[in-house]
Structure formats: structure tokens, C-alpha cells
């Protein structure tokens, strides 16, 4: 018996448009990933990698299919968990190619907000945020605004944000594009 499943999908299909403008971006995609595994999706441009991430990340729900995260069935055909957004906040971390930081919050606040959204006290959320920033080598830049950080520093802050709530699943879409070789690894 292996480690428990962190992610399980089956029959994931995403269709955009109708009739003669219909585009099938994803057809019957399925996968399983266990806790602790790192899974890389490789494919040519337009293969549906980002679409798959959007479906699994509950950002853009699929047309059909089943998704279970941490053993919890989140999407099953037309049925979905009642509060997808909260589930996303608690269980999924995102890192995208372009760092997406909230421009009016500084580095530590961009991470702290994630903790506060799930009800963690501000002091606890801040402490966790500082720990992550220190671990990623940007602790000294905690009080800088995103525009004051380099591209690499911004991406590290994004990674720290993704880890803030100790999610079951981290989804990363070309996350190391802005990082140097060492940091990327």
C-alpha cells in the first residue's frame, strides 16, 4: 500500500464554445499522484497542460469528469463541493510563470493574507510568512512592495505564498522560468 492519493482525476473533459465553434481543450484526461510525489506534465504548446491545471485547481471547472484532492471528491460531473474557493485556499497552492502578487501588499503581507483567509490569527499567519520568506532567502525583503522586488524575488514570494497553508496540492505552471538554476532546482 503506497502513500495516500493527493490528487486523482478521471474523465476530465473541457469544451469551449458550442456547435461549429466548439473547441475540445481536454478530453478524458486522468491521473493519480500520491503525497510527496512531484509530477511534471510535459507536452507541446496547446496540448492542454494549463487547461488541466485550471480544472484540477478548481479555477476553471471542467465540462465533465471527476476530481478528488486529498481523498475528498471535489468535482464529480455536475456536482461540486459547495465552497470551492475556500477549499482552494486550504488545500491548493499555486505558482505561475508570471508571479502574481497583490500590488498593494508587501512581500510578507502577500503571504500573511493567505493564512488569514482560512481564519488563522494575524500574528500566527505573519510568523509563518516570515519563516517561509527566510527559508527561501528573501526574509530581508519582507517589507518591500512587489514593484521593489526583482523577478526572481517576486517568484520566491509567490512560492512562499503557495506553501503558506501547507496545502495538499501545489500546482505550478512553468514556475522556474524567472529563477536562476540553483533556485529553480
Amino acid at each position, binding site marked *: 500500500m503506497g502513500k495516500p492519493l493527493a490528487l486523482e482525476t478521471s474523465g476530465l473533459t473541457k469544451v469551449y464554445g458550442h456547435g461549429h465553434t466548439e473547441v475540445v481543450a481536454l478530453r478524458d484526461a486522468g491521473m493519480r499522484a500520491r503525497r510527496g510525489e512531484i509530477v511534471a506534465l510535459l507536452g507541446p504548446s496547446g496540448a492542454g497542460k494549463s487547461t488541466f491545471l485550471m480544472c484540477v485547481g478548481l479555477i*476553471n471547472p471542467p465540462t465533465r469528469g471527476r476530481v478528488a484532492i486529498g481523498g475528498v471528491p471535489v468535482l464529480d460531473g455536475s456536482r461540486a463541493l459547495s465552497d470551492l474557493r475556500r477549499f482552494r485556499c486550504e488545500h491548493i497552492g499555486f505558482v505561475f510563470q508570471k508571479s*502574481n502578487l497583490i500590488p*498593494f501588499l508587501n512581500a510578507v503581507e502577500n503571504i500573511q493574507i493567505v493564512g488569514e483567509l482560512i481564519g488563522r490569527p494575524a500574528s500566527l499567519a505573519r510568523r509563518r510568512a516570515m519563516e517561509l520568506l527566510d527559508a527561501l532567502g528573501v526574509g530581508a525583503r519582507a517589507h518591500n512592495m512587489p514593484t521593489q522586488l526583482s523577478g526572481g524575488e517576486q517568484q520566491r514570494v509567490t512560492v512562499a505564498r503557495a506553501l503558506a497553508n501547507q496545502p495538499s496540492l501545489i500546482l505550478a505552471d512553468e514556475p522556474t522560468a524567472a529563477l536562476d538554476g540553483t533556485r529553480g532546482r
Partner: protein
Amino acid sequence: MNLAVRDIRHSLGRFVLTTIGVGMLLMIVMGMGGIYRGLVDDALVVTRGVGADLWIVQRDTRGPFAEVSRLPRSVVDRVAAVPGVTDAREFVFHTIQREHRGQPLRMGVLGLGWPTDKGEGLPLIAGRPLAQNHFEVIADATLGLGLGERLRLGKETYTVVGLTSGMVSSGGDGLACFTSRDAQAIQFNEPGESVRLEREARRARAGAIDFGRTQPGVLERASGPSRGLAALPGPAISAVIVRLAPGADADAVLRSLHGWSDVTVYSGVQQEDLLLKGSVDRARRQLLLFRALLTLISAVIMALIIYTLTLDKLHPIALLKLIGAPNRVIVGLIMQQSLIMGVLAFGVGWLLGQRLFPMFPRRVILTGDDLLRLAGIVLAISIFASLLGIWKAMRVAPNEAIG
């Protein structure tokens, strides 16, 4: 963590400028309300200052403010004799515009019933009441005259012996208080040449009739001043103001006066009503309409500002949704910003108003009730203004954060 405050801090310059702009708009709204109240108050300054229980005016007129009224002076003595009347005084009021120091000077001329009334009850801020029957004046500070300054009106020169504050006519002109004789002399001033022509004409008319030819004394009197001719009355007064004795039967006094065929009687309340429905009514309605329009415009402008501020934040809003922020966090962000802007703008408007309103040519009166009411309206406007932004924010999808 308060997202609204952080967003404001991040775009502080823009927020401050926008708030000042909205504040100035609210200042105008406040000012309109204050001008309206000032207009009403100015209209009632004289009537309230006089404190008359009854106003007796020329028959079938709505004088002495809404309409011209002329009464012979003898009415004062007749009214004083009515049981229940403790005080009856002549009231002279008219508006003039003359040249003084090369500039037009417009003022309301109020005649005080010398020697009973020397102006002791006026709100003096400098100088003293009248001390003689002629050639002295108490002027309101808005007229820009100084103590001791001499004012040429008609054939006479008057010295400013006292200054008041807040004494204006219903038209907003500063009041100048003379004795009633001087007020009448100013009102009925005629050039010397016209007086001489009238005397010659009078003499010619007297000489053309048998009575004038056989009575030389009549001819002599015809050439003299008109007060020498008993048949010719003195200058008219505008009204008679009446104070009733404590405990007097007001209805009985009214019944008695209503029976006179040459006068009309108004109570103090009726006189105020005539003023408000007469000379100031249109100005009042105009100001009210402007105030309503400005309030509506403020609401629309605030809504557009908050909507624009929200448009600038669509990407962060999508990002907040992406990382799992519930709708209430986003609604709170937008509504709090709108409320903060509303509250601060109200404060800016009030502060600016305190500096600028005293410089307005007419009084701007802001009461606590008016300010509270406007604060409530600003609160409602702030909430309403945020709805448009919230509607836009709710339509943003989380995936818009990643393009």
C-alpha cells in the same frame, strides 16, 4: 489585515486628490444648504429682532417687506389707544442704493421710534446706540462703514455711531438704523429745486381761488414748508409695530383692529410667512433644487470614482479570488474604501467650508441637524457608490489573474 487601508496607502496621492475633489463638491452641497438657511434667517432678522406681536400695514397690502406699505403717522397714536396694547411704534423701512466713496452702497434703511427706541436692543459690536434725534446712524458691519464715518444721504450727512453684526434685510443688504424721522427724510428726499417748484405751484393754486385771494395768511403758508399746512400730512411710515400687554386678550385686540377700514393687521407669524412665501420664496426653491441636483451629482461622481478605482484593481481582485478570498472580503475592500472616502471627503468639505463660508457675500448657516442629515446622505451615497464597483468585482473570474 485591512485591505482597504493598504490599497489606499499604496495609491495615497491619487486617493488624497480624489478625496479632496469629492470634499470640495460636498462643501458646495453644504454651502447650498447653508445659503438656503442663511437666506431664510436673513429674511426674518428684522421681524425677529423687532419682536412685534402685531404688524399694522396699509389696507390690502402685504407690507412692509413683501410689498410697499404707507401709513400716516397718526395711526401710531390710534393703535396705542387700543386696550391691550402696551407699545405701538412707527416702523419705517425701505431700501436705497447710493454712491459712497465712489462705489454703490446698497442698504436697508430702518427707522427707529425715537425717543422710545434708540437702538439699545440692536446687536452692537462697536460704538453706541443713537444719542440724538437726527444725523446719527447705526450701521451693520457688512456695509463696510467705520465708526465715525460720515455718510451723505440726500441733503444731510449722518455719522456712524454704532456697528452691528448680522443685521441684514430680506434681500441680504446690510441694515442702517436711523431715527424714523431721518429714515423718512431719506425716503422722501427731494431735490431743492423740486421743493421750490412745488411751493410755487401750491402758491399759484392758492392764489387762483377766492379763499387764497381773501386770506393772505393761506398764501404765506402755501409758500412755506408742507408741515405748516394742517391739511397736508407728514411723511408716511411703513407700518406700526405693536406689543401686547402681558395677559391681554389678543383676539379682542385683533377684532378691534380688523374693524378699521384703513389698515390690515398681521401677527408676527403671519408676517414671517409673508416674507418666506413672498420675497424669498423663489430664491428658496431655486436653492433647494440646486442642492438636490448637487447631491445627485455627488452620488454619481462618487459612484464613477469608486467604479474606476475598482477597475484599476480587477487583477488583484481576481488574484484574491484565486487564492481563495471569499466574496465578503472583496465586497469589504470596495465598500470600506468608499466609506473611508465618503467620511474623509465630508471632513474635508466641512473644514474647507469653515474657512470659506465666512467670506461669502451672504450668510451661510450650518446647523448641527443639517450636518447630521448630510452626513447620513453621504453615508448612503458612499454605500450606493460602492455597489457599481462591487457588481464589477463580482463578475471577475479567478482565472483572469493568470491571464
